[in-house]
């Protein structure tokens, strides 16, 4: 990927560079350190020990960070606009916002968490909209990269949801009762507990956050990989003139298929945002429940 002045062309879509994948984050303002240490720059990695005073920008000001920030700004802007001076009889703008808000407030919060759902609505709304907009970046022509196919972001949200449901459970039941609720199911005969308790512990305290983060990451990672194969590979084949027409036909075909894949990605973008939100609500509900 070529580096230039800050702009959207930096995020994705530049000519591929060997040794650099679209999933690598790129600094927006590469420091001297980056030039020396990046294997793609052609310099010897041995000189990498020098630490430039601006080296931190190579990690903290990157294309993916910028995407996430833009996504967050868009989400906040969306909610501020649709909820601006709400009327009892909604305008179209307000109705659109209410539609999404109700989906999360009633469809997810009230349906799954139950009577105490009100205090979790902000969390669910923020979670869904932040994931949704970053997923849509994967099919948006200026960005063309789903932020959550970078696993750091997915782990961050998974950790937050993990902390949330454990905090809720411990605050409500106290630490020991909460852990007992979570790992000792009711109505299980004694000997089976030897089997069930470790499984429940594994499932509720270890597998849950890992699957939460992995599911989001893997879906978008694989989806973006597929799209790249069909679009980049297809356009390469379409313009390949060395041998025969079969390559070009295959390239055209794979570009056509990529349209379907984009449609699928739109579905996946929504579905993964929704699943992440629903599962978080589900975990909160199970942590709040009297018995498991």
């Amino acid at each position, binding site marked *: 990927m070529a580096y230039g002045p800050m702009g959207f062309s930096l995020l994705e879509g530049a000519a591929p560079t060997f*040794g*650099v*994948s*679209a*999933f*690598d*984050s790129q600094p927006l303002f590469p420091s001297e350190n980056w030039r020396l240490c990046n*294997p793609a720059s052609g310099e010897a990695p041995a000189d990498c020990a020098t630490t430039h005073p601006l080296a931190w920008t190579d*990690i*903290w000001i*990157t294309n*993916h*960070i910028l995407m*996430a*920030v833009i*996504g*967050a700004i868009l*989400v*906040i802007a969306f*909610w*501020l606009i649709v*909820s601006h001076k*709400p*009327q*009892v009889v909604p305008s179209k703008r307000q109705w659109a*916002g*209410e539609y999404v*808000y109700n989906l999360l*407030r009633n469809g997810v919060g009230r349906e799954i968490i139950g009577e105490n759902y009100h205090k979790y*609505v*902000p*969390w669910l*709304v*923020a*979670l869904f*909209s*932040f994931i949704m907009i970053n997923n849509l970046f994967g099919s948006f022509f200026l960005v063309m990269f789903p932020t959550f196919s*970078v*696993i*750091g*972001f*997915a*782990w*961050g*949200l998974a*950790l*937050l949801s993990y902390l949330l449901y454990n905090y809720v459970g411990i605050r409500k039941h106290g630490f020991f009762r909460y852990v007992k609720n979570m790992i000792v199911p009711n109505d299980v005969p004694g000997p089976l507990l030897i089997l069930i308790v470790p499984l429940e512990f594994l499932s509720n305290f270890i597998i849950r956050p890992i699957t939460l983060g*992995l599911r989001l*990451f893997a879906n978008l*990672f694989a989806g973006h*990989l597929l799209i790249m194969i069909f679009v980049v590979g297809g356009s390469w084949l379409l313009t390949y003139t060395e041998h025969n027409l079969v390559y070009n036909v295959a390239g055209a075909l794979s570009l056509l298929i990529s349209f379907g894949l984009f449609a699928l990605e739109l579905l996946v973008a929504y579905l993964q945002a929704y699943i992440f939100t629903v599962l978080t609500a589900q975990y909160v509900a199970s942590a709040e429940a009297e018995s498991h």
Partner: protein
Amino acid sequence: MNPLEGTGPLGPLLPEHISEFVVGIVLFIIICLIVWKVIVPRFETMYAERTESIRGGIDRAEQAQAEAEAALAQYRQRLATADDEAAKIREAAKQAGAQIQADMRTQAEQDAARIVSSARVQVEAEKTAAIETLRKDVGTMATTLAGKILGESLDDDARVSRTVDSFISSLSEDSPQK
């Protein structure tokens, strides 16, 4: 770098940079705070207003309905009272009519009885007077007749019978005088 190889022992499952992890968390917390403090209150206030306005409309409609029902009940009650009163008045009028009729009949009967009795008394008196007169006159007439008979020739049968006839006719002429 091959995206499937990643940078660490866990392949692509570890973040490339810690910055992604931290920035993701920070951004989410910022969004969550704004949604919590600004967006949700806006929507919830509006929902409360909407609920209030719908409930207010229902309350007003219920109030109007209650008022209409009260008015109807009052109207029905008044109608029933009026019916009762009309029936009472009719009953009273009927009774008064019957009373008047009965009074008049009694009056008429009394009058008739009085008239009849007075007529009877008069007739009785006249009869008595007639008998008195007759008794008084019979002697006179008998004397007159005898004089007449004696005044005439008693041998003449024709004259006798003529005399008797004239007497009787005079009687007949006299009697209507009473």
